[in-house]
């Protein structure tokens, strides 16, 4: 039986940590930590003594990673942080026209597999993959991906060009997945020596390169921990599932009010389930808001469609945004689901999305939510 559930909430003004027993009824808040830093992502590494790793961005001081024990939250910054590649010259016009930040940012931190002591991966914007073998003190680029021959065709999306999803196959130490907006998803089967784009049968966004497998605007990609090769992705143009390690994808967004969204979460105990928050698209790209009522949608598997989860969520007048790191699920059964919003709200469910409660209100804008069982 798990002792505690920990939810790291990264905001525009620091990191907040919520903890509860496995019942997930009473929550204790700690923080803010790393005040002043934008916490793009924070996760608990549960491989040994639980440690929090955070991807942090400052408008003044650049970007880095922090690590500290969960018990005391005394953080230490990287001595050699990931240094993202610079924006490609051919993207200058695009960045300018769309008002996209060219800042070099660490976007996501992902612990390695069990047994890979001290190993973590980081994704950055502009897109880069980095690896540490000393628990985040020093980072080295994974140039097999960062200098991939197709890089000249990679394009930023409206949110920039970030390597935001890093998923490690728990059963195959040489296989992992990385997703980059707005380039697509990649898989390595040989321990990062080479990378294969895995975007066949995923629709391309308007304006994407027409030929080749580069140009899919994947917003979030997750690997189910219990079924080898089962992947889900929330894309700019739909929600997709793959059962063959990303070689092919099936669209599953039929029945959602919008195919557009950013966040995604999986139920570790039910490989046929995923959760997402569809966002409204519309003119002037005002797409980061729901259209009044706030709903988390649960997919129930092939042929079973989507269920709108509304019990306990705002019924109307809730113009909320959920960013790509803004959803997470714990691994208990039934799973807990956690959603953070741009308004500083965090909603949580302890029954696999059937009912919801407010975990926090009036935090700074939420950039990331990550749950762990320790």
């Amino acid at each position, binding site marked *: 039986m798990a002792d505690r559930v920990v939810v790291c909430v990264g905001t525009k003004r620091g990191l907040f940590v919520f903890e509860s027993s496995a019942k997930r009824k009473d929550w204790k808040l700690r923080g803010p930590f790393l005040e*002043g830093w934008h916490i793009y992502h924070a996760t608990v590494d549960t491989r040994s003594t639980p440690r929090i790793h955070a991807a942090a961005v400052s408008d*003044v001081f650049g970007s880095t990673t922090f690590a500290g024990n969960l018990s005391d939250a005394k953080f230490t*910054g990287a001595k050699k942080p990931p240094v993202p590649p610079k924006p490609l010259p051919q993207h200058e016009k695009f960045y300018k026209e769309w008002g996209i*930040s060219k800042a070099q940012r660490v976007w996501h931190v992902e612990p390695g597999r069990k047994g890979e002591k001290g190993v973590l991966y980081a994704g950055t914007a502009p897109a880069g993959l980095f690896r540490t073998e000393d628990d985040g003190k020093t980072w080295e680029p994974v140039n097999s991906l960062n200098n991939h021959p197709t890089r000249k065709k990679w394009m930023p999306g409206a949110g920039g060009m970030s390597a935001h999803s890093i998923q490690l196959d728990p059963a195959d130490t040489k296989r992992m997945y990385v997703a980059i907006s707005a380039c697509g998803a990649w898989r390595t089967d040989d321990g990062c020596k080479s990378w294969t784009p895995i975007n066949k049968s995923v629709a391309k966004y308007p304006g994407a390169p027409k030929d080749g497998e580069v140009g899919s605007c994947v917003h979030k990609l997750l690997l189910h921990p219990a079924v080898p090769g089962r992947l889900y992705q929330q894309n700019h143009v739909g929600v997709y599932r793959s059962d063959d390690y990303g070689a092919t994808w099936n669209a599953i967004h039929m029945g959602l009010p919008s195919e557009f969204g950013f966040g995604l979460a999986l139920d570790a105990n039910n490989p046929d389930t995923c959760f997402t928050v569809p966002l409204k698209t519309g003119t002037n790209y005002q797409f980061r808001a729901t259209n009044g009522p706030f709903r988390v949608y649960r997919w129930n598997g092939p042929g079973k469609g989507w269920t709108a989860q509304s019990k306990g969520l705002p019924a109307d007048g809730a113009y909320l945004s959920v960013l790509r790191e803004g959803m997470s699920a714990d691994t208990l059964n039934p799973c807990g689901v956690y959603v953070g919003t741009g308004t500083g709200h965090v909603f949580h469910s302890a029954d696999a999305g059937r009912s919801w409660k407010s975990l926090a209100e009036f935090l700074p804008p939420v950039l990331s939510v990550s749950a762990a069982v320790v």
Partner: protein
Amino acid sequence: MAGPVAVDVVIPSMLHASVGAKKLRVEATTLAEAIEAAFLARPVLRHHLCEDTGKLRPHVLCFLNDTNTRDMKTLAVALKDGDEIVFVPAISGGAVH
């Protein structure tokens, strides 16, 4: 020019956890040497304070005592005992991101 003196380099609070110190004591003859000595002692400090070109990031200010180094013609100014070099984030706003 006199020999090296010991001066303090004050670290912005947001960087204490990265640099591992609130201030660094360095020995140098000039302001430029002192800043470089601080960067050599804690290389991550350069990452956070400087652009790739070596210039200070746009919103980082450096003061020698009460003087903003942006108002100096050169950093090759002699230091004296008790001088303090302070890095601070600039207070700015109003820009549309």
